[in-house]
């Protein structure tokens, strides 16, 4: 039941992304708060609702953004997949896993967006995209990843209390 917190929380994340985070630019890139939150959520040990959260955030982003929704769905679900795969392997170093997922996820989502928009006819110079969007976004996402991971870890403890599993 506590999983229903996903609705207000992710809605708030999308609103913050649209109204605040998108204004804090580094060159032409900015952080992707929903992406970091999904990555951090997927890395929590006991969490079982990651796929639901990812689909929900894709639906919300698809509603707000002009970005083609298949690109969003493929990108975010891939992040969940990578996070869960890494979580099983490097569970003893959660921050390392968080950095890795953020790094891989940011690159993947950005290049997927680039490819999707290219297919739809928008012309982007790849050099500009890498230098002005992808790398600055990657840096900002890495910076945001630690506080977001801490927050999502505490949230996971609240949504999945330890006593339920003991």
């Amino acid at each position, binding site marked *: 039941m506590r999983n229903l917190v996903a609705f207000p929380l992710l809605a708030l994340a*999308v*609103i913050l*992304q*649209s*109204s605040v985070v*998108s*204004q804090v*630019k580094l060159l*032409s*890139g*900015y952080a*992707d708060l*929903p992406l970091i939150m999904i990555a951090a959520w997927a890395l929590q040990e006991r969490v079982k609702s990651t796929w639901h959260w990812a689909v929900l955030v894709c639906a919300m*982003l698809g509603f*707000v*953004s*002009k*970005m083609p929704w298949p690109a969003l769905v493929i990108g975010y679900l891939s992040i969940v997949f990578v996070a869960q795969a890494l979580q099983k392997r490097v569970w003893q170093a959660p921050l390392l896993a968080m950095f890795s997922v953020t790094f891989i996820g940011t690159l993947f989502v*950005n290049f997927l*967006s*680039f490819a999707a*928009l290219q297919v*739809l*006819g*928008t*012309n*982007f*110079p790849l050099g*500009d*995209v890498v230098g*002005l*969007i992808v790398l600055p*976004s990657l840096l900002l996402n890495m910076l945001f990843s630690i506080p977001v991971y801490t927050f999502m870890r505490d949230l996971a403890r609240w949504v999945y209390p330890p006593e339920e599993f003991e």
Partner: protein
Amino acid sequence: MNSRSLQTTIIFLVVGGILALALGGFFGSASRQFSSVLIELQTWISSRFLGVQDFVSAPRDIASLRTRNAELETQVSQLQAQVIELQQRVNETEILAALVDFSRTNPESTYKAAAVIGRDPSPFLHYIIINRGSNDDIRRGMPVVTNQGLVGRVDAVIADAARVQLITDPGSAVNSSLQNAKTTAVTFGSVTGDISLDMISQNAVVQPGDLILTSGLGGGYPSDIPIGQVITLRSLEFQLFQQATIQPAVDFSRLAIVLVITNFRPVDIAPLEPQTTP
């Protein structure tokens, strides 16, 4: 007269006599010495009393001062918040006044003011979200302007909000005209948010500072809305067209309130375009 009343009378006479002599100046030096001793004594007692009073009441004063200080700090922060709020209102009023002036000087169009409430979450796209939608008769394709110039056009609409594609979006193309050169061109957006002018005829004479307006060709935008000014021109002989970089008329990083032109219906010329047959 009994002995008690006689005693009292004598005392009164003696005291009265002494006072009379003192007032008459007969005890001058003696009274000065006496009074100075009294004053010194009083000063000493008073200073000691004040010291004791300070010692006793000081902690209470510090506590009350701290309370008062906290109250004043709260008051200052409230006033600062009020100042910020009022400053925001002043800024908003200035923007609205400019927009009203703009709508008065362009009475041929009907405008609907809207606040910018968000931007596209993706850094690849340059879209804004405004707080007016189909409930306010906003429709897809309507041009969006400010008093400075063209902003973009409505791309998607829901009941109480709409998404606007800015002219800085990489997918945006606006048919434009150069006011001085009397020629048409196309304004394109880019991933960096800069806009550029392309497809300028090689025969056109373009100078930095030339004003760029919408041409109205294609039916996507009304004509003669300012877009920006030419900064630099690139003209190569082996290319079909000249290109120019543009300084936009609108500051897209500070968009707060925009105007949607509600009496403009974009024309869909797709059926008129020639079909390519394989």
